[in-house]
């Protein structure tokens, strides 16, 4: 057993650091630090995606034949860790991490040829049409319907929580093409051009004041049948594949550690009257740091298992749960650290392009929005209650 990197791994680490030093601009860094929502705005995020793509690192998880870099799990770990440490933009995952793997796994040759390069290059910007107003954690109860009409589907219904729908030119969506005996049956996986007539997007402001998600309405939207991925009615399988991916793919500890570091720096600064001198704040910083240590070790154990081709078991729910709970602990600590200044609401966005002097120091601006938006982590992608149901069932057999 060994926690340290070998020579090869250290060399790769240097390469990543070199790449970041060369490509990460101060503006990108500041914009990322001052973004209290999950993903960077497209101008920031896609600039980074293009740099990655140029380096051949545009899609770490993809097979080599589609442009993946063929990294080992340890390299993947090093890349994610160094990226988090440096504060690179948070590229919207809907393209590379979400729809990409589904197209690779289940798409036709034509779909692969057309879409995959455009994802890698950042030419296409994707959003995800899964949730609906009534569905919540019971995702497969979705009602948006696609009715076959010749070589097209005609889609009617509505999707909600659609991240960056207002920026995206494409959506991958689950729609109901027929009614099966189970509600998971009859769902199909469709790729939609967002410029198709009949699509309307309504912004939904998050509790932290950010415009990141939307509701999308479909009114007789005509989509070619050729845009369906895989078999008709099998969409649930593909969608679930993605959800597993979403839960398990996280190398989350590195980002959590940087988030905590920012809060600890604030706590040690005069701006907060040295909040860290209070035993409560100091101890809670340690508590959260230790929780991150534990999560990191679990991630590394999973990684080691993957490295030797073992199946790490059903830990994705644990990783998702702990990541979301720790994130909430970090952001909540932030609120307590900035004290009085947590009262100040800055409604303008983006925070890195304010045209006035904010009421509180810039380093504090994201603290409250991140705490508020962070409440969503235990809700989206399956609530914590659902995750515990899954752990009890899958790991404990009850």
């Amino acid at each position: 057993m060994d926690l340290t990197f070998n020579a090869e791994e250290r060399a790769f680490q240097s390469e990543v650091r070199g790449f970041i030093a060369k490509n990460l601009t101060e503006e990108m860094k500041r914009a990322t630090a001052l973004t209290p929502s999950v993903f960077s705005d497209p101008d920031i995020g896609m600039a980074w995606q293009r740099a990655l793509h140029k380096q051949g690192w545009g899609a770490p998880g993809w097979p080599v034949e589609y442009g993946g870099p063929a990294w080992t799990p340890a390299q993947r770990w090093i890349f994610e860790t160094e990226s988090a440490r440096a504060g690179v933009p948070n590229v919207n995952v809907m393209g590379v991490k979400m729809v990409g793997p589904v197209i690779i796994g289940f798409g036709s040759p034509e779909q692969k040829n057309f879409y995959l390069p455009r994802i890698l290059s950042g030419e296409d910007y994707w959003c995800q049409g899964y949730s609906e107003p009534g569905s919540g954690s019971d995702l497969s109860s979705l009602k948006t319907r696609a009715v076959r009409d010749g070589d097209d589907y005609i889609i009617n219904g509505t999707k909600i929580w659609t991240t960056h729908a207002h920026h995206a030119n494409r959506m991958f969506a689950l729609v109901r093409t027929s009614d099966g005996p189970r509600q998971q049956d009859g769902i199909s996986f469709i790729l939609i051009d967002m410029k198709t007539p009949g699509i309307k997007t309504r912004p939904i402001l998050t509790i932290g004041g950010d415009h990141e998600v939307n509701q999308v309405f479909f009114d007789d939207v005509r989509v070619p049948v050729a845009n369906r991925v895989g078999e008709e009615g099998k969409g649930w399988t593909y969608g679930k594949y993605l959800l597993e991916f979403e839960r398990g793919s996280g190398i989350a500890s590195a980002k959590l550690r940087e988030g905590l570091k920012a809060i600890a720096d604030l706590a040690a600064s005069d701006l907060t009257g040295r909040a860290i001198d209070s035993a409560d704040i100091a101890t809670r910083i340690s508590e959260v740091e230790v929780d991150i240590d534990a999560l990191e070790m679990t991630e590394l154990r999973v990684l080691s298992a993957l490295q030797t081709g073992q199946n790490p078991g059903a830990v994705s729910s644990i990783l998702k749960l702990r990541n979301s709970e720790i994130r909430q602990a970090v952001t909540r600590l932030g609120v307590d650290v900035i004290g009085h200044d947590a009262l100040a609401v800055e409604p303008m966005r983006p925070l890195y392009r304010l045209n006035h002097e904010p009421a509180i120091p810039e380093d504090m601006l994201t603290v409250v929005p991140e705490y508020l938006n962070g409440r969503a982590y235990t809700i989206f992608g399956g609530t914590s209650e659902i995750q515990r149901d899954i752990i009890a069932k899958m790991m404990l057999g009850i």
Partner: protein
Amino acid sequence: MDLNLSDEQRLLRESAERFVAESYDADHRRKMANDPLGYSPAVWKQFAELGWLALPVAEEFGGLGGGAVEIGILMEAFGRGLVSEPYVATVVLGAALIDRCGRPAQKQASLPKIADGSLKLAFAHSERAARFDLAKVATVANKTAQGWRLAGNKIAVLDGHAADEIIVSAHLHDHHGPSGRIGLFLVPATAPSLIISDYPRLGGGHACNIELSDVHLPEDALLGDGHDALPAIEWAVDRAMAALGAEAVGIMQTLLDTTLEYTKIRKQFGRPLSANQVIRHRLADMAMQVDEARSMALRAALKVDVAPVERARAASGAKAKIGKCARFVGEQSIQLHGGMGVTEELEVGAYFKRLVAFDTLFGGSAHHYARHAQLGRTA
């Protein structure tokens, strides 16, 4: 020993609840959230007419001579409606400081006007470097031939934008230098060299930062006769915390009611959320915490006028405990509302934010448990 409401108290509660239910609805709140002032002068006038602004003011100054329990009754109702009028700043903090520190002429000049609604106040005390330590004041008041010269920076001044006059705390410096005493000054909001940076406050209302760069004041701007005002500040803040605690109870009760209702109606996997035992127990815990918070707010109100250490322990204990309950009830309300809870589409978010603001105001739970412990050892 009797914790039942008197008939007058019951009437006050009913009228406050009725007012909030009838006049302070979701539409009004939405309007206030987007209003540059953040509260309604018309509502303030109604408060005056209903006698609520006169409530704690002594009868000799045109008030009703009510106590902290009555204030608490009102504040709990305000919490249910997320009332954003500057009641705490003017009536709870402002009136109390003037009543306790002011010379007779100063009281006569201000208190009747507070009671009739023609004077609004704010209390500028907190400073960034002081954190929650009430004794730490870097703002300085230098004695001059004409009066006083104030310089310093105040932050998180509740509803300072609405105030006609701002009570500013400063370390008194006389000809010999620092006196070691804190003084309170009545500063007109329009004073030159006073820069007010207003901002909307988390969960409703406003606050501001105030920059005082050589603000010149006449001799009699100092409240009272130069005694150290720290004990009065602690006393007034303890009162404010009791009042805010009652407001938090009202907010929590509304969140509990709303969330309970939602879990009964919202269906997932073919049955209401409330069919899940985990959800039922969560709601039971929320209900218990609302009940505990209510007990503590009442306790703090009943002890605002006892000996300082006992009063301060009751106030800090209440602030700490209610803050803890508020975070739990607030966060769980969001959680149980699911996706809709984390948007600005439902009001649950606004109620939650007001609770976060409550927990921060005058120091969070950890600060007040530590103060409670510290006071326990000196007791």
